[in-house]
């Protein structure tokens, strides 16, 4: 496991392998691409590198980032979570709707409890029932969305007295000049990264994702490990819902629709393998920020909003391709 983790960290610490410059370039391709695009954007727009713009980009990226932190853990454990978009809708509707009924404190506690319960269902089905995570979370995506619509009757919810509640602090507040969503994002990312890198729990998750059979033979309780990754994912979704609900002070029924894809895009872009057993939170943070800056840069250059999706298409595939090409020392596959 030690070597795997060193490999994971090489992105952050810039460790250059022996095989020379080209290998280094392709290994760090995504960071280099990021730097080049930053330079290009800053040529075309004076505001791009301004402090306020950078802060607002990070702030916008923080909701996707918070969720991505949790999903990264699930992916490292060798599974997928497609239900986070629906779960985000669910949690946001819950916290906003309950806010006026039971007050902010109870609403937040209940929302976390309910979201963790949904995560526990995911975790039970994948961890203990050992069902295919892709299909399970796909089914949950549909079921949760249906559940929200049944609960709300298709109505959007909002908070009646928006100025008279401290609930707004999560989405709109600042701590020492830094937006609260960014603080939550950073704190979560650091905690989870430390847990994954420096605790035996984190090593177990890597082991389960890398080689489940070997992990079980080493005495790791695989089922519990997988179960717990879904709880972490649900917890992160709940944090994101806190930010989203508090920023908007209301919620549509499908507010989180499509988030699962953006989250996955960020994670893949960062370089975490969907096969499990490898990856890191830092990579995910970088991936999510790259998506955020590209979106922002394209907007500042005057391109339509949707151009970023086209660019995302290209860079996701390029990022994974470069990584693969680097590993097999050749650009294309050879089979016919």
């Amino acid at each position: 496991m030690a070597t795997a983790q060193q490999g994971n960290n090489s992105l952050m610490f810039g460790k250059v392998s022996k095989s020379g410059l080209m290998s280094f370039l392709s290994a760090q391709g995504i960071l280099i691409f990021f730097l080049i695009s930053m330079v290009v954007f800053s040529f075309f727009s004076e505001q791009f590198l301004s402090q306020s713009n950078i802060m607002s980009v990070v702030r916008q990226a923080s909701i996707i980032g918070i969720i991505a932190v949790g999903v990264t853990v699930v992916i490292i454990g060798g599974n997928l979570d497609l239900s986070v978009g629906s779960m985000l809708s669910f949690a946001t509707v819950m916290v906003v709707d309950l806010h006026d009924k039971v007050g902010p404190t109870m609403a937040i506690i209940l929302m976390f409890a309910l979201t963790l319960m949904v995560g526990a269902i995911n975790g039970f089905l994948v961890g203990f029932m050992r069902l295919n995570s892709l299909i399970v979370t796909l089914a949950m995506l549909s079921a949760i969305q249906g559940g929200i619509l049944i609960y709300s009757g298709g109505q959007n919810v909002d908070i009646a007295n928006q100025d008279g509640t401290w609930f707004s602090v999560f989405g709109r507040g600042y701590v020492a000049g830094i937006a609260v969503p960014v603080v939550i994002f950073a704190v979560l990312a650091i905690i989870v990264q430390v847990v994954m890198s420096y605790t035996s729990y984190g090593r177990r998750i890597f082991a389960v994702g890398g080689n489940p059979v070997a992990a079980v033979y080493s005495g790791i309780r695989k089922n519990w490990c997988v179960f717990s990754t879904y709880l972490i994912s649900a917890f992160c979704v709940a944090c994101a819902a806190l930010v989203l609900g508090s920023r908007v002070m209301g919620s549509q029924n499908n507010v989180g629709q499509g988030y699962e894809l953006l989250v996955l895009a960020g994670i893949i872009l960062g370089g975490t393998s969907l096969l499990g057993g490898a990856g890191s939170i830092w990579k995910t943070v970088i991936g999510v920020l790259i998506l955020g800056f590209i979106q922002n840069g394209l907007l500042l250059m005057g391109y339509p909003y949707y151009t970023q999706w086209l660019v995302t298409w290209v860079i996701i595939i390029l990022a994974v391709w470069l990584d693969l090409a680097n590993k097999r020392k050749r650009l294309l596959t050879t089979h016919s």
Partner: protein
Amino acid sequence: MINVKGFLKGGGFIQPIWVFVIVITIFFSFMSDYFLSFGNLSNILVQTSTIGLIALGMTYVMINGNIDLSVGAILGLAASLSVGLQDHGLAVAVIAALASGLIIGAINGLIVWKTGVNAFIVTLGAMIGVRGLIFVYTGEQSFYATNFAFSDFGAASIGPFPLLAIIFLICALVMHLVLKKTGHGRNTFAVGGNAEAALDAGIRIGRHMTINFIIVGFFAALAGVLLATQMGAATPNLGRDYELWTITAVVLGGTKLTGGYGSITGTLGGVLAIGILRNGMNMMQVPAFYVLVILGVILISVLIIDQKLNVHASKGVSI
């Protein structure tokens, strides 16, 4: 009771999903007087033809061991093109729409083949990117068909049978025969079952994968064009979540995500099961929301049953 297990495995004459289809058909026919009417049944076929057509192609891709998440976006693009280009003539518009599906399918397939990047990632990218393409092309506008020949096509029928339903059933038959009787069908199973063994056996696995992506792209585009003829319009968000419905239908039909196993008849059953559930619950005046929950529960139940019956499934390969 002796051979229940073998039957549920799908080894018998009737696939389990078809039993489910028959059961819910009987159930709904008791619950609603109108359910079993000819008009309603052909209505169900027309409604399911959209997802059904995509599911035909998706079955090939999934038997092949891949997955295509971009079908919903391809459907949206084809629908927009088929309506938006009608100023240049109806034929041009429809051909361009179908060609867009073929091209995007080919791009997906070639990337999966040549770069070796996982199909999940490639088509996830395409799903996001093609949706962007739609919005860039349409400028976020909905298009309305001004040529009535186009929207008449969606409502046309041959004798008492709606044209769209006939198209869907013919496509299903053709796809079934291709899968069962041709070398491409056999090799699709072989590649999905064990790609390395297939490679050693001299099967050109890359070509077969690419062809299957082109097939699913074409069917997604066809579904988009036909859906646009039904509505006489196309919106840029058309087809959102269709990939989820399609995958649900195919998995309900017994096709394995891990590849190497599946059938068009099963997929047809899966598609009909979804269509009948939606239609029947509509007739019982159950809000549409409940269908989402019930589908999710059914999908997970199918997985659990499948796993209890097949030891192999418990190895749980996840992408």
